[in-house]
């Protein structure tokens, strides 16, 4: 036998055994999963029934009884608590916390410092539901962890919006870069107007334009009306993205005094800023800006015409009359077409209503 033949034969038998092993593994794994699903499903339903009973019962010992009865099934108990813990508040949640404290808390705290990311993540997910504000130190430790764990920790911290935890979120926002920044933005947005003071403070810091833009966006999105003056100072910021966000935020804050700033932004050198300012002017509905919106419908930029058209539509009858006039004129076909489209959409909206 040649060496090539021996190598091929060896390869064949090796690959054949590997394939057979893999096939058997897939089948056995499927069977085990099916069995586990059935078994865990049965245990889950039992625990779920008792947990629901604990929530509605007034017996003080009932949570402890359930905790001890099912301490040999920590995985399923964890699943039930994860499923119900987030949905409940007040007394009902306190009763579930008793079960958590007696069966899972020690494991959970151990899990938070596990080497395995998944274990830390799983423990963090459970811990954030049942932890007390006094225990937030455990979560602070996770802020230096991998992004997924860190995000979970920050989400938890945002649930206790005291000054210390909020500072952590903002500090992380200032220090980190990349994808995490967007996550922090989302968390800050979730906290709502309780972050007002911190936003004010960070708007004064020398942040890079992309972070500054996010903070300005936040002012409009929540909305934080008292920070109106803090964001208008950025209306002449050299970065185009920051000016766009100012224009957008002003359209959400709807403060009548912002008309002049928006009018100035509507004549910005960048068409993107102009377009955004026109949308916000339309939302403000100040009749003094009808001429600017009308003039902008003749802009060479499609988006400027588009936003001006819908801006006029937001102005009520007078805006609609202007649109009709522009639709009827023949000098500028682009402005006429845009007006026709906006008027057509208005008819649809009325029909749909």
């Amino acid at each position, binding site marked *: 036998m*040649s060496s090539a033949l021996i190598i091929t034969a060896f390869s064949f038998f090796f690959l054949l055994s590997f394939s057979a092993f893999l096939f058997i593994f897939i089948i056995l794994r499927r069977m085990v999963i099916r069995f586990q699903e059935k078994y865990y499903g049965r245990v889950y339903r039992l625990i779920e029934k008792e947990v629901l009973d604990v929530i509605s019962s007034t017996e003080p010992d009932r949570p402890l009884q359930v905790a001890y009865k099912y301490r040999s099934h920590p995985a399923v108990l964890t699943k039930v608590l994860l499923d119900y813990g987030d949905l409940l508040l007040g007394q009902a949640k306190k009763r579930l916390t008793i079960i958590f404290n007696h069966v899972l808390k020690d494991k959970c705290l151990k899990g938070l410092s596990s080497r395995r990311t998944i274990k830390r993540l799983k423990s963090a997910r459970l811990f954030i539901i049942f932890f007390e504000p006094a225990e937030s130190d455990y979560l602070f430790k996770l802020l230096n962890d991998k992004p997924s764990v860190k995000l979970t920790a920050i989400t938890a911290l945002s649930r206790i919006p005291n000054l210390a935890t909020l500072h952590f979120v903002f500090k992380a926002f200032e220090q980190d870069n990349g994808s995490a920044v967007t996550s922090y933005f989302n968390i800050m947005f979730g906290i709502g107007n309780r972050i007002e003071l911190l936003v004010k403070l960070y708007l004064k810091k020398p942040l890079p334009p992309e972070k500054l833009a996010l903070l300005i966006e936040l002012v409009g999105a929540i909305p934080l009306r008292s920070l109106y003056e803090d964001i208008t100072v950025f209306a002449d910021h050299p970065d185009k993205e920051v000016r766009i966000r100012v224009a957008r935020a002003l359209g959400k804050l709807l403060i009548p005094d912002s008309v002049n700033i928006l009018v100035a932004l509507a004549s910005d050198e960048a068409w993107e800023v102009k377009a955004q300012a026109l949308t916000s002017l339309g939302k403000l509905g100040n009749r003094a800006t009808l001429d600017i919106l009308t003039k902008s419908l003749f802009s060479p930029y499609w988006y400027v015409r588009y936003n001006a058209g819908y801006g006029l539509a937001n102005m009520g009858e007078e805006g609609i009359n202007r649109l009709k006039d522009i639709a009827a004129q023949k000098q500028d076909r682009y402005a006429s077409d845009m007006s026709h489209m906006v008027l057509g959409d208005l008819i649809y909206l009325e029909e749909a209503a």
Partner: protein
Amino acid sequence: MTEVLHSLFHVASIIILIYFFFINAFYFLFTILSLSGIFHYRNLVRFVSFKDVFRLPLVKPVSVIVPAYNEEKAIIESVNSLLSLEYPLFEVIVVNDGSTDRTLEKLINFFHLEKTKRVFRKVVHHKPVKGIYTSPSYPKLVVVDKVNGKKADANNAGLNISRYPLFCAVDSDSILEKEALLKMVRPFLEDPEKTVAAGGIIRLSNGCTFNSGQVAQVKMPRNFLARFQLIEYFRAFLGGRIGMSMLKSLMIISGAFGLFRKDIALLCGGYRTGTLGEDIDLVVRIRKYLHEKKIPFDIRFIPDPICWTEVPETLGTLARQRNRWHKGLIDTLLHNLSMLFNPRYGVTGLLAMPFYFIFEMLGPLIEVTGYVIFVLCLIFRQLNHPFAILFFLVAVILGTLLSLLAILIEEYSTHRYPRLQDILIISLYSLLENFIYRQWLALVRVKAFWDYFRGKKEWGAMEKKGFAEAR
């Protein structure tokens, strides 16, 4: 003479053996990477609640663009599925690309559409638009009727008419799962600057039943050709694209389901008309443009947003589809040949392009050459019978092993075929596909070379059954 023949066959065999070794090494590398990638992704989605993230103001709105040509059988079901997507803000733009059947009529009647005077920016070129239709009852839906210009042209019209910064290209014979768009947009939220495109997974709708635009029951296709394709899709999407995405060298985002940043697609000139592989072509041109401009970017493959699509069930239709796909691949690779082995294009030029060129494009030619050499060796009595038989068995087992690994990845990921019987059938077909089916496909793809260089670029008719309603 015999000596010369012997040497000739010997050299050819060695070249084919080296090729065989490298192609399988690459496939194994991608599959193993995919396996580790799927573990990571599975754990991530299990413990991180993405829904919280999506309730946020930074989620970018999406325009779903659906080019449709003679799709009267499936179009209503497909559009209904798209309109029922869970996503904060989106629009569905169906582009009727000059259908000769009742596609437009069905859309107008079902969705109560009326012609509007909508205006749009013509940034990329396309054939004239005959009318734009909207409906007060379905404000998210826009139907564009245009002169036939093929899929890329229809996509370009959709791109011009779309209003939102992200667009999702979806085939008109496909159905997206309700949360598919939410899952797909995740990388755009995590890294909005770098992420320029993302692809989702394509699954076979053959055999499945549907209800209200959603999959009611996942079942194995009954047709044997569809079953072979099921394995192929497992290998391509689960075994290949996750691994390629991990190596930052993903070059194909299926035209049936892909999410792109509109500004980048427009900067690259939109879809290239005249090519049959408009999906791979767009991704390659995006990569080329961003490498040339030295802009850091990421193109991701997300393994759980699912798009259900109908695959051909007859040999003729399947041959036409694969012929078209291969012509599209040849066209794109030859059109961007300057990227091949060019360090200027980073991982695209040094890994992705060479892989697709040598193994995906030339693969069928080399495979068929191997069969021809086998027959010649047989005729000229130059065949080492025990070696030939063993080598063929090794090839079969390797193919089966790769399929089994893809099945394992499926088991760890979406796990859509829950019956044990389904896994047994899929495993059996992963063995059977190595006989005749694989060789036939290689011949079909070799014919694509012939057709391509003869300038035959027609699309080819596709027979569709539509989606079966759940009872």
